[in-house]
């Protein structure tokens, strides 16, 4: 009898626990929303490393662009448009950029955004060790309360897109260099970080600034961005009604969600490339011969890469994004997959017996290593893979340890920034330059035309400086409570999301 009473007690406790769960579950776990209060719940793969000006180290930039106004901005079509600077204009030789700053912007602290605030931020960015932006800037001056003049030592087309990205973040000047700037940002953007509900590194809660000068373009009163590295967890969150949008789905996941959710594909976000870095043959003499580099391009069956992740990858053979002005359709298929022709080129170059090359095996390359090993082996190039940890990648790549390597790069939204990255210390560790390339680069920087970098693209392709392999895109799904328009520049801001029409 006593035993049965005891068991009954355990049973009652279990029922009570289930009842508690059921009752708490009655209110649901989706974000609180009603007709007048709209919440956007998103997931992010990686948290912002730091909010400090000049210390951007990866992560979802849309959190920063929600908190900080940028000097200029990318619109949904990828065009650079005025933002904090209501007008921007170069002088004739494109060495002086004049920015007319809006007079109606205010930091969340109540301080006014003026020219000096912009100067303080751009100066901090320029002097920061960790930001690759504002290259070639000589001086930044406030010439009156709302005018900033940026002077370059020579024309540099990457300045304007930098001001629309991480190089253009504007924080309250008194926070720059403070102990709290990395975790407690104070900006003038359309949203303010809710410090009480935000858990740095895990979940970011943003509350709308009702009197922001562009408030009408931001329909959500609150944005919650949870850091969820695992895509399955994000899909579960979407299906359970806790998230409005999940991105980075596999084709299987996308097909499963089709019908229940709105599904689609983003524009290409990253591209994978064999960076043929040792173009002067310091480590591997064969790579100094353009015919060898061309043969590498011809050894790649780029359609095979598409089959590795259907719907998420397509082969590319140019450095630049197809959305930019430098992309040349006539160069498509410039190096068709032709093993025989590639072997002949290698033989002509004097390497008929082949050669070997050591490439770093990284978290980004492992999936492609069998494909690359086999492709290059077919033309006599033996690849030895050397494991490099994620922490060591940047240091190893930029210290001339590898003659060539496979590594992805993110499309920046700007031909000028893509070139700057491709010729920078990580992807061009041997610092290769030629008089012709330098001339083309200088001309592109001084041009100001949309297709300014097209000739440089032609040079890179013909000289086979790179062996582009594929571009990646994301498959996504969202609930019917929001609408989403895939932007040209993925992940830049929260503007692609709007409240769904009934």
């Amino acid at each position, binding site marked *: 009898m006593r035993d049965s009473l005891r068991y009954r007690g*355990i049973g009652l406790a279990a029922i009570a626990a289930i009842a508690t769960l059921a009752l708490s579950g009655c209110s649901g776990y989706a974000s609180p929303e009603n007709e007048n209060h709209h919440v956007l719940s998103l997931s992010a793969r990686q948290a912002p490393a730091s909010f400090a000006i000049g210390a951007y*180290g990866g992560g979802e930039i849309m959190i920063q662009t929600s908190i900080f106004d940028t000097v200029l901005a990318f619109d949904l079509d990828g065009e650079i448009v005025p933002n904090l600077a209501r007008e921007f204009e170069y002088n004739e030789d494109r060495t002086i950029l004049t920015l007319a700053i809006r007079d109606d912007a205010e930091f969340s602290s109540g301080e006014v955004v003026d020219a000096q605030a912009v100067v303080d931020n751009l100066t901090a960015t320029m002097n920061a060790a960790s930001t690759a932006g504002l290259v070639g800037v000589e001086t930044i001056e406030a010439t009156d309360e709302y005018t900033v003049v940026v002077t370059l030592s020579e024309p540099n087309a990457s300045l304007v897109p930098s001001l629309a990205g991480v190089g253009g973040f504007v924080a309250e000047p008194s926070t720059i260099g403070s*102990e709290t700037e990395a975790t407690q940002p104070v900006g003038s953007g359309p949203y303010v970080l809710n410090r009480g509900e935000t858990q*740095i590194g895990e979940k970011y809660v943003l509350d709308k600034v009702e009197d922001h000068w562009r408030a009408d373009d931001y329909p959500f009163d609150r944005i919650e961005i949870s850091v969820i590295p695992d895509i399955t967890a994000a899909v579960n969150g979407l299906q*359970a009604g806790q998230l409005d949008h999940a991105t980075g789905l596999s084709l299987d996941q996308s097909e499963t969600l089709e019908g229940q959710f709105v599904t689609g594909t983003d524009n290409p976000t990253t591209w994978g490339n064999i960076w043929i870095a040792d173009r002067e043959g310091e480590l591997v003499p064969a790579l100094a011969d353009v015919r060898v580099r061309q043969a590498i391009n011809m050894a790649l069956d780029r359609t095979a890469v598409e089959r590795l992740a259907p719907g998420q990858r397509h082969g590319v053979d140019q450095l630049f994004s197809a959305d930019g002005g430098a992309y040349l359709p006539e160069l498509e298929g410039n190096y068709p997959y032709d093993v025989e022709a590639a072997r002949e080129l290698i033989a002509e170059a004097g390497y008929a017996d082949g050669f070997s090359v050591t490439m770093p095996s990284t978290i980004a390359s492992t999936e492609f290593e069998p494909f690359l090993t086999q492709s290059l082996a077919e033309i006599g190039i033996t690849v030895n893979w050397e494991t490099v940890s994620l922490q060591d990648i940047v240091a190893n790549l930029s210290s001339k340890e590898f003659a060539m390597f496979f590594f992805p790069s993110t499309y920046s939204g700007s031909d000028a920034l893509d070139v700057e990255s491709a010729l920078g210390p990580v992807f061009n560790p041997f610092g290769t330059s030629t008089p012709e390339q330098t001339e083309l680069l200088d001309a592109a920087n001084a041009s100001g035309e949309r297709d300014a970098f097209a000739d440089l693209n032609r040079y890179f392709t013909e000289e086979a400086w790179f062996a582009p392999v594929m571009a990646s895109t994301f498959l996504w799904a969202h609930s019917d409570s929001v609408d989403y328009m895939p932007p040209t520049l993925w992940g830049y801001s929260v503007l692609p999301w709007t409240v769904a029409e009934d």
Partner: protein
Amino acid sequence: MIPFLLRRLVSGIVVITVVTSIVFFLTYGTSVQIARNILGPSASDEQVAILNEDLGLDRPLVEQYLDWITSAARGDLGASYFTSEPITEALANRLPVTFSMVIVAVLITLIASLALGITAAARGGVVDRVLQSIGTVSYVFPVVIIAIGMVYLFAIVLRWVPAIGFVPITQSPGHWLASIILPSITLAIGGIAGLAAQIRGSLVDELGRDYIRTLRSRGVSERAILCKHALRNAAGPALTVFSLQFIGIFGASLFIERIFALPGYGAYAMNATVQGDFPVLLGVTLVSVVLVVAVNLVVDVAQGWLNPKVRV
């Protein structure tokens, strides 16, 4: 009892010191270029050298170690290299998530194991075989599959509980329980079978001993024999298994937090490892070792209380 406790405490401090020292020298002693990784490829060698100096990385390794261990002894674990977030603060935010899940998992493990183990030992026969079969199945079934199945049923179809995220108990006890119940059950399932089998086996042994027969002959009730005498004597080995499982549950939480997107200690440790955020890595190592030592200490004390011979 006090000398016994002191001995355990001293050995615990030695273990903590040795483990954290090994981790310190393994991480900081490698060739990883910390300052270069923080600043990125655009930084000049001069800027890298300045940061190395700021972080104290240009000093001899032993000096860095002594600095870290004295600061840690004062409760100052430093700040993350990458986010500048104070590590003590970050741990204070994340440990409640993990502890919530682990404590509930441990409670579920204990209650279920005791119920299954005692029932199987006391009833025997078909009940024993059925319970053992259930235990074996739960032991061999991959917990990840169980987790996914439970998420699908309870979070996606029924929407009784959330699929992802954590709600602090201070915000809503009901939602707190709902947010951790699935991960806790997932963590508990693998441990229940092993602990229940241990309890059952020890109890069966005890129930066959001479003193049990003597107690029965004196008319002592079966319930008193089981709960007061047999269970106490059978508890020693079970406690050892339990302490190992507690540590196992804590370790497994690293992966379970990822599946349920819980912002806990495991996710923090994982990110630090991937990024090479050494101060964070050392901080989470210290907490893990302290926890393991504390659990073992508690189990040792409990063993000593149950069996005075252990204290000698």
